[in-house]
């Protein structure tokens, strides 16, 4: 139970539901009843049959929706087409080198810009070889010649997500089954713990993280923040911070060499993008003690306020991958019980830095 809410996890569907105590009471009574008549008898001494039936049907539909089986599409076996290895790039992360082959400049733009700062020709042995190509309107991702993912080209963000997952597995020497999930959000560390920043696209989470990274904090992960089962820590994701055109003027005076960063044109509505490389934190992983829902609002006064688990879960769950493994779901719920949850409304950069520094100090004194 979190404040006024209960959070339930349904194993069969890997779905989470947030309910209030009154709903739980009705649900328990419904499940306890052997027949519909028995349930109606429990609830309807003070209401008519049609109201009772409405409650009963709503609970039935809730349970039906919560128990839809979790299924993944069957991947058919596909043989790697090496004739599409038109572009070859190597990337080195602290002595660990990977090889990626792309079929075209357009496909290269799905992954390369965010890792461009690691693109160095190396004589190191490669830890993994990836192939990413477009064939018959589908995007393919292979790792060491095994198909990892095949999606329609319009769902290229799934190839990006899968690639990042595989890159994290390679760099941290893990399997996909070792992770609790990958949160859609950016994580900042002060060298002791970390804070996960979440929010809708355009609400300023990457901009805020770029600001923090330019002012004494370290970026642990941008956009995809992975949590490992072994220690429930957020792990380092080497992707650079992606900054949309709307934030260029704000960051230009604050980020060293911002002007010289190349402009990437890929997604038409997102407009021009710049990728800011950040220094690697001292450690590969940090505990995450707080989550902040970012809400950039021009001319607003800074406000950091606690929010409910409902607000936070409604933001993160639909945009995050969470493992269906019951152990991982339990760990995710355990983590939530220890987590501080806030919403940050801000417009001014100086005040926001002071507020986040203060919060880190408070969190570190508690944990």
């Amino acid at each position, binding site marked *: 139970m979190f404040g006024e809410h209960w959070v339930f996890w349904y194993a069969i569907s890997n779905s989470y539901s947030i309910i209030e105590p*009154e709903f739980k009471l009705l649900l328990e009574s419904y499940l306890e009843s052997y027949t519909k008549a028995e349930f109606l008898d429990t609830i309807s001494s003070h*209401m008519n049959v049609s109201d009772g039936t409405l409650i009963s049907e709503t609970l039935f539909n809730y349970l039906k929706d919560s128990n839809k089986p979790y299924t993944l599409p069957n991947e058919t076996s596909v043989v790697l087409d090496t004739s599409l290895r038109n572009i070859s790039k190597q990337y080195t992360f602290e002595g660990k080198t990977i090889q990626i082959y792309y079929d075209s400049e357009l496909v290269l733009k799905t992954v390369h810009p965010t890792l461009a700062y690691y693109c160095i020709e190396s004589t190191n042995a490669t830890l993994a070889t990836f192939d990413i190509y477009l064939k018959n309107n589908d995007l393919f991702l292979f790792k060491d010649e095994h198909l990892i993912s095949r999606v329609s080209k319009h769902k290229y963000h799934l190839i990006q997500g899968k690639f990042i997952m595989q890159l994290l597995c390679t760099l941290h020497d893990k399997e996909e089954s070792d992770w609790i999930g990958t949160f859609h959000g950016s994580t900042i560390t002060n060298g002791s713990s970390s804070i996960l920043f979440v929010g809708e*696209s355009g609400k300023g989470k990457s901009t805020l993280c770029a600001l923090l990274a330019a002012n004494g904090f370290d970026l642990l992960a941008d956009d995809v923040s992975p949590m490992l089962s072994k220690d429930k820590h957020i792990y380092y994701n080497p992707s650079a911070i992606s900054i949309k055109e709307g934030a260029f003027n704000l960051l230009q005076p604050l980020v060293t060499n911002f002007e010289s960063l190349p402009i990437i044109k890929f997604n038409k509505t997102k407009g021009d993008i710049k990728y800011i490389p950040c220094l690697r934190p001292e450690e590969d992983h940090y505990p995450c003690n707080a989550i902040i829902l970012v809400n950039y609002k021009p001319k607003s006064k800074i406000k950091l306020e606690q929010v409910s688990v409902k607000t936070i879960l409604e933001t993160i769950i639909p945009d995050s991958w969470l493992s269906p493994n019951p152990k991982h779901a339990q760990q995710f719920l355990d983590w939530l019980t220890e987590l501080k949850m806030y919403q940050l409304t801000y417009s001014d950069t100086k005040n926001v830095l002071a507020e986040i520094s203060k919060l880190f100090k408070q969190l570190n004194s508690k944990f």
Partner: protein
Amino acid sequence: MKKNNNLDKITRKEAIQKMGKYAALTAVGTFVILNPLKAQSSSPPDPGGDPFA
């Protein structure tokens, strides 16, 4: 054990009756079901911004 269940049931029935008709009808509509993504993803494209269109 059964006795305890029955006691729970009675308490629950009393609690539901205390809640009243309107509170019960309101409460039953307050749940939220959230489904995580079935595969890892980066930020999805905004509508109309698909570079592969």
